[in-house]
Structures are given as structure tokens and as C-alpha cells.
């Protein structure tokens, strides 16, 4: 098995809500499998060499920081689109999902984004804050997390989750997140890979499979993650799930 390259994009500017926990969890699980991992911290002013990375992570940020990032990431629009079509792994959390839609509406202002998907974003005058419980199409147990945002996405063609409780793509929407090829995007913070061990396992399995289909994965040791998940769900969501 060769070294796996993880890129944490905009690590220093899109890092609201403890989001680096997602990268820590993924890296640790791969290393527990005896796989070498190289973490690339990439940000504004850096060259974005998408081909070099096996897995790209972007976390949540403030609106002002998001706009600085848009200016930078738009230069790589074509390469990113190709990469997603060729099954490159993207794991995107919080409002960074918005970078991949057509545009962001901010009152009368229209900010163009990568345009990889057909959805668009609308910034609202109010913040939306709630716990989220989502049914996941490819996993038996629900996904748990939190939403804290002042924007919504509309016209999403490739939802990842069904909303059991929470905001979803917009208040009272039935779905949340974007899943297309190996692109996984969700508004959920948590960190979602830490708090949902089944999702973490799934992502590790899928990622390893695309790099070396013959690699035999050992049993995962996610005792703490599983206990935290079970305890949380049993204590607080007994009547919901």
C-alpha cells in the first residue's frame, strides 16, 4: 500500500467549530491500518495541486473568510470538476458545501462559486441553529451532528441524507447534504467523522478500496467513538430514533 495524501484545504481560515477533528480522525484510522499518511496543509496563496491528493477536506468558516476562499478556489474550477467526475474523494463540512454550487445570493449581490453542482446558496438574515439527526442512504444507523449557519442551499439534485430532526438544506427541508461519486458534503458539524464511527469506517473503506483494492483492512478499534455515539443516542434521542 502506498502513502495516502490527505489535503486539508484552508485549514487556517475555514476552521470554525472544531472541524480539524474530522481530519485527525481520518488520519488516525488510516494509520491504525498500518497505512502511511501524509497530511498537506494548503491555504490561500498556495498552489492547489489537486492531482497530488487522494482525499480533500474543507471545513466551515465565516462569511468573510468564505469570500476570500472563493477568490482563490475559483482558479481551480476546471481541475476540481474533473477530479470529482473522476471519483476523487472530497469531504466537505459546514458552509463550505456552498463553494461547489452555482452561486451565493447575498441580498442583491451574487457571488459566483465553482458551479460543479446545480444548487445555489442563499444567505439569510437569521441564523439557523439545531441538532441534526439524519438517515443516511448507505449506512444503517442515523448520522448525528449540529447545524449552525445563516445560509441555505436550494435545488439540490444529489442529497446525501434524509432529515429525521433538524434543519437540513433549509428550514423544513426533507434532505441534507450532497453525495455524488466520492464527493461527500454536509452542513453538519460535530465533528461528524468523530461522532459517527460508522461513517468514519465507511469513508476509510471506500478510500482504501480506490487506492489498493487488494488491501485487507484489519478490524477497526473505535470503542470510544461507538460508546459516545450509543450513549448520546440512548440518552437524548430515545424517542426520536
Amino acid at each position, binding site marked *: 500500500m502506498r502513502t495516502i495524501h490527505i489535503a486539508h484545504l484552508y485549514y*487556517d*481560515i475555514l*476552521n*470554525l*467549530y*472544531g*472541524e*480539524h*477533528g474530522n481530519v*485527525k*480522525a481520518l488520519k*488516525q484510522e488510516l494509520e491504525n491500518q498500518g497505512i502511511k499518511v501524509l497530511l498537506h496543509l494548503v*491555504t*490561500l*496563496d498556495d498552489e492547489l495541486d489537486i492531482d497530488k491528493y487522494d482525499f480533500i477536506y474543507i471545513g466551515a468558516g*465565516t*462569511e*468573510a*473568510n468564505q469570500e*476570500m476562499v472563493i*477568490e482563490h478556489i475559483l482558479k481551480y474550477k476546471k481541475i476540481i470538476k474533473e477530479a470529482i467526475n473522476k471519483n476523487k474523494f472530497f469531504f466537505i463540512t459546514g458552509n463550505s458545501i456552498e463553494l461547489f454550487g452555482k452561486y451565493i445570493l447575498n441580498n442583491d449581490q451574487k457571488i459566483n462559486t465553482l458551479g460543479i453542482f446545480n444548487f445555489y446558496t442563499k444567505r439569510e438574515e437569521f*441564523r439557523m*441553529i*439545531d*441538532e441534526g439527526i439524519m438517515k443516511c442512504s448507505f449506512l444503517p444507523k442515523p448520522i448525528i451532528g*449540529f447545524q*449552525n449557519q*445563516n445560509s441555505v442551499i436550494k435545488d439540490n439534485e444529489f442529497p446525501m441524507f434524509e432529515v429525521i430532526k433538524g434543519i437540513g438544506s433549509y428550514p423544513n427541508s426533507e434532505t441534507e447534504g450532497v453525495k455524488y461519486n466520492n464527493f461527500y458534503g454536509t452542513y453538519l*458539524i*460535530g*465533528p461528524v467523522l*468523530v*461522532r459517527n464511527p460508522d461513517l468514519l469506517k465507511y469513508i476509510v473503506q471506500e478510500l482504501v478500496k480506490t487506492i489498493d483494492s487488494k488491501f485487507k483492512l484489519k478490524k477497526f478499534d473505535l470503542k*470510544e*467513538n461507538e*460508546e*459516545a455515539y450509543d*450513549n*448520546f443516542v440512548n*440518552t*437524548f434521542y430515545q424517542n426520536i430514533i
Partner: protein
Amino acid sequence: MKIITIFICKLIQFILKKTGHGTSLPGSIALKLDKNILKKMERPQTIICITGTTGKTSTCSTITEIYKEAGIKVGNNLKGSNLKPGVVSLFLENATMTGKTKVQTMVIEVDERYVKEVFKDFIPDYFVINNLSRDQLARNGHFDIVWNDIHNAITSDIHLILNADDPLIAKFALDHKGSVSYFGMAKNKLSTKNHMGYLDLGYCPKCHKKLIFDYYHYGNLGYYHCPNNDFKRPSVKYESVLNNNYTFTIDNQKIKMNNEAIYNVYNLSASYVVARENGIDKTVISKALNNLSLQMKRLDTFKLGKAEGVLLLSKNETPMSYNQSLDFISKQKEDKTVILGFNRVSGRYNLKDLSWLYDINFELLNDASVKKILCVGPFAKDLALRLKYANIDKKIVTTYTSSDNVIDIIKKQTKGKVYCMFYFDIFNYVKAAINKGAKA
């Protein structure tokens, strides 16, 4: 109407005081009777407001001590709340029946989210901004929102007193038409090339280039400049120089501290600068600050059964404060048990966001002197999970998913000195048990 409102509220204030009750109620009532009440009351000669994520209260009390030392009649809202009703209560308390003020200077701590509300009624002469960092994000959204609200409330008649070492705070000066003074620290033995954890503003607010830090003092505080020279750490007239043995020098005055915590230096320096700019004599200020170190509150120590330890407040959702406590614990050399716990994430709302745990530097507990870590309460498993990602040895971590037996846990399950970090809910419960034990 004005006199009636003041009369009613002062009467309520009087009764509440006699019965030993809290203080924002008269303000709430006054606002109901007349929402413009503050505008109708006489303004003291000088108003100093203080805001920031941490250190508001201690800065407010320090500034008050300086003015008292100078023989100036001064009022503050230390006993009340720092939201609008608390501020109204403060004005009522220090006013005559006709709304005339009884003090020369008012020192007011203002919650960072209420600056815009409070400044609608009066504009302070001096406005001290200590710091802004991640704090109760489920309530505040994020710090840009808080920053913008404060920025919009600042008018050109205000003399700003800003932390020069924090780029997010120094940014308030960029378009300010009025006076600005700074406090800040010179390079010292605690300064490092590497920053701890995240940066909340790593970029130039003008050209968006990454700021270059020559060194950091703490978190995102340090000496910075933009590569295009559009923005840099401003020069500080009264710069603080940290000495050895718990003192620092400012304006040729030596100031004693009771600990070397950097936030302490900032709070004292901010107080020094605002008083100095307001014309108070430097020897008077330094005398007040040096007296302060004698009366500063001691640690909350306890003895429960055979267990001896320290009770610390776990500031959930405020990583900067939480880290300060962890930093303190990690610097105590003796063998110890650390107990972490909270029954609720927040006293303000029922939402269970846990993402803030990952903005806290629990890695600080990764020390050979930490023999056991006990996690208590319904989120014990979530705490243990966070500790796993801080690379803490799983063998030393135990979880108790109920805090009902916390006293027994402290008494029987600990080893060495005990450092408890509890949120208000468990903190108050344990504190009551300690007090009861002391009486028995």
C-alpha cells in the same frame, strides 16, 4: 414620568438590596416603564466601557480600584449583569431622584453582544476591547458577527483602548476617526515562534495576504505584519515588559502580579492605559495595581474526605478560557487527578453542540503528572472521545455517565491532588457539598 420611574425603581432596588437579591430587575422594570430612561439621566463626567470574550469583569474591577485610589467617586456594574437592564440598574443606583448622577466616573462591563444596544443610549468616553475569541458559537454564530456588531456601534467621539497584540482587535482602529491608544506586551521569555492551536485572524484585513508573525505570546496574540505593509502590530506608547518573579514594567512603573498568566498582564495593562489616558497620575495607578495583587481572589481549594484539590469553573463553549484553566493545571507539577464534567452544554439553551470540545487544547493534559482523568455527567463519553484524539492514554480515563455520585467519585476514585473542572451545574453542587462539610 422620569421622576416616577426613577422613584419606583430605586424603591425596588432598595427592597431587593435589603432582602439580598440580584440587581438587574430594577433595570428591567425601568426599561418597561420608559425605554429611553437612560437618555434622560445625567451622564457622569467620564464613562468607561469594557468588552471582550474574557477578562471583562477583572478589568472592570481593576479600573474601579484605580479611580478609588485617585479619590474619584466611581460606580460599576460588577454586582449586576452586563446586559442592558444591568447597565440601567447601575445608572439608577448612582442617581438622585431627579436623575442627577452621584458619581464622577462610571466603569461599565458590557456583554459583547449588547454593545450595540447599550451604545444607543450613551456613548462612553473610553472603550476598552480586550479580546474576541470563539465563545458560545451556538448563540453567537461566530466572532465576525460579534465583531461587526461592535464595530457598527463605535462612533468617532470614543477613545478606543485596544489590544495591539491581537490583530482582530487592532483592526477596530483601521477606520476609526477618533483617538486610539493601545496596550500590549514586548517580546519576552514566553514568546514563541509557533502558535498554539488555531488562528482566528491570520490574514491582512486590507489586502488579504497571510499575516507574518515574528512571534506569538498566546493563542493568536503576538507581533505581526502584513507582507505588503498594509497592516501591522501598532506601536504601543505604554508597552508592558514582563520581568522575572511575577512582575511587569509599564511606563517605568513596576507592577506585581499574583500569577504569571498572560491574560493577567493584558487586563492590568488595559486598566493602566485607560486610566493614564484619562489623566490619572502614574504613581497612583501603580499603587492601586500593586495593592490589587494582595487582595486578588485565591483559588477555590477544598478537602472532601481524604481528597484535596482545586475547584475550577469549566467555561463550556469558550475555548480561550477553558484553555487557560487547562494550562494552569498542566503547570502544577505534583501527581494529580483531573475531573471534567458538565450536565448541560449551556445554561442559556438546551442545544447539545459538542464541536467546541475540538477547539480546546486537551492535549495539555498529556503529561506524566496526570495519573487519572475522570469524565463525569451525561457527556462523559463525549469527553473521553475528545481525550482519545488528544492522544491521552486510554488506561487513565474513566467515565461516569451520571454526576449524581460526584462527591463519592472525588473522595474515592482520585489519586494525588484533585483538579475539578466543572460547569456551573456540577460546580455549584460540589461547592454546596464542600460548604456543608466545612460546617459539619
